[in-house]
């Protein structure tokens, strides 16, 4: 509260905050309800889940979690594959899109605009519309049945948005800095390495989380590319529980809860940077 505010004003913001708080809480409950259903669903028996889907578990059972995390350990395999694929996708996207972003923002050359548009056009394609030719391409390169097939294709489809964000951000980096670096005898790569990279931390965080979300949730691509169930990722794992003739709802709920946890952790720790990165990169006011 500002000190200059008078008595009347002191009251107003405080009641306002309460109004805001209750409104936020109301929306939060609405938004949270489906998550609540999943969260408690994993602790119920299947019978209870169907007869009383929204009540509290009675009794609480860890059966579903045990089935997923226990001896057979299906979850950990899926988890490792998801992490592996996401990590390499992120690494590749960051390297490729930052490098391209530097060229597209800091070097003047003929065809730059065309090249930028060429990449950006990719934002208009959903992966699902070109899936068969994409599969043929991967097969031609002997990449079907490998995790790298998924990684490379995902990387390619994530490049447009990342290049869009990085190019925008790099353009904003002051010319003075660049000149200073230039006078010191550094080239563009030195400038990129010494100055641009450290400045980009929040934008990197933003791009990382966007790709992470996409990669973590990608379904169709890994389904088509991977043959061996040992390589399956988490969304494919969920589908294993949603069978043709049975749906182990309680196990699905437990599985979803666990698979979302890493994302939740990641997001909450990086939240600050993500907003900062978006501010700096994509959505300059």
């Amino acid at each position, binding site marked *: 509260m500002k000190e200059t505010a008078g008595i009347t004003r002191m009251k107003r913001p405080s009641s306002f*905050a309460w109004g805001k708080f209750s*409104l*936020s*809480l109301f*929306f*939060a409950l609405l*938004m949270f309800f*489906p998550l609540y259903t999943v969260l408690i669903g994993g602790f119920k028996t299947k019978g209870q889940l169907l*007869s009383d*889907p929204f009540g509290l578990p009675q009794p609480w059972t860890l059966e579903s979690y045990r089935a997923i995390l226990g001896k057979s350990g299906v979850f950990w395999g899926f988890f490792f594959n998801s992490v592996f694929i996401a990590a390499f996708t992120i690494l*590749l996207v960051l390297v490729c899109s930052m*490098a*391209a972003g530097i060229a597209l923002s800091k*070097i003047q*050359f003929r065809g*730059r605009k065309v*090249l930028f548009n*060429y990449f950006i*056009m990719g934002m*208009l*394609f*959903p992966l*699902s*519309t*070109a899936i068969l*030719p994409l599969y*043929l391409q*991967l097969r031609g390169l002997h990449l079907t049945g490998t995790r790298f097939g998924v990684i*490379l*294709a995902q*990387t*390619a*489809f994530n*490049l*447009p948005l990342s*290049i*869009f964000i990085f190019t925008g951000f790099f*353009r904003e980096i002051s*010319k003075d800095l660049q000149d200073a670096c230039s006078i010191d005898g550094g080239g*563009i*790569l030195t400038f990129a390495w010494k100055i641009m990279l450290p400045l980009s931390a929040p934008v990197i965080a933003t791009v990382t989380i966007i790709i992470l*979300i996409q990669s973590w*949730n990608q*379904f169709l691509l890994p389904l088509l590319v991977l043959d061996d169930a040992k390589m399956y990722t988490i*969304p494919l794992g*969920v589908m294993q529980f949603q069978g043709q003739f049975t749906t182990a*709802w309680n196990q*699905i709920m437990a599985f*979803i809860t666990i*698979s979302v946890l890493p*994302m*939740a952790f990641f*997001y*909450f720790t990086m939240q600050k940077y*993500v907003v900062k990165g*978006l501010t700096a990169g*994509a*959505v*300059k*006011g």
Partner: protein
Amino acid sequence: MTWVSPGHIPSTVEDEGRHYIMKPLTAKGKASFQKHATILFLVAPAFILFTTFVVLPVLQSGYYSLFQWKGLGPLNNFQGVGNFIRAFKDRIFRIALYNNVKIVIFSLIIQLPLAFSFALLVARKKYTGSVFFRGLYFFPYVMAEIVIGIIWRFIYHPQHGLPTLFSQWFTADKMEIGLLGDTNLAFWAIFIVVCWKYIGFHMILYIAGLQGVPEELEDAAVIDGASKVQVVFHIIIPSIRNTIIISVFLCIVGSFNLFDIVWAMGQGGPVHSTETLVTYLYNFGFKRFAFGYGSAIAVIIFLICLVFNLFYQKYIVGEAQK
């Protein structure tokens, strides 16, 4: 500085000469070589990956779209634009197109304003829990669409789901409500889920935009006697205009590419009432072994996005620049 749209490089960058100029070297040829080597080195990885896995497959799709082809065997039944004509003559295709347009329109008038309100609620004047609320609103966005479909099917379940539970609280008879089985309501049931998932994403965009608007500006306006509504409409919205434009753009392209949620919640049914362009592609291209036709649908989706993008750049972004 405002650059906001894909495909748009503001001329200001070049006018101001902000670009990097290579140091003058003794031999001009050497400098030029070095510069081009650098460009090649920087752009090549992205270019190769993008071309191989995005552009070539998409071009192939474009080629297939000219044939009647089952996806098996040789391409020998050339149709020209026959597949495209067939699409626009098909009633169900028009339903799918209409649904997509509906999703766009209602996203613009419901989802984005809600997302904006959420942003205002949690980004301004920090209070206990605002960061937590922000995280919660964003959370559905991190979940896989296919998983979200599974969850909401469960919530909408006619026999033990939430709508039925509610109706039984408020009415005496044991009425069951099957939203996803109703050709009039299924679309709205799915639309709610789409909003639920993507509101958080747009909220984060707006929050990021709001960071660039100093709170002092608003305080000053309030002191000058402006109402809160006036502050929102006359100060905040004009200040984050570019953020709004990006959000609208992503929302529209996203709507035209909507697939997993709709698929998981009813495969475009009942009776095609929730068909979108991509589910249509899947139902009438993939499932019926009509791959040439499916490719034509893919091309149409792309063209719609492209036309929209060009229009948008020319008029809307152009306006914003003035």
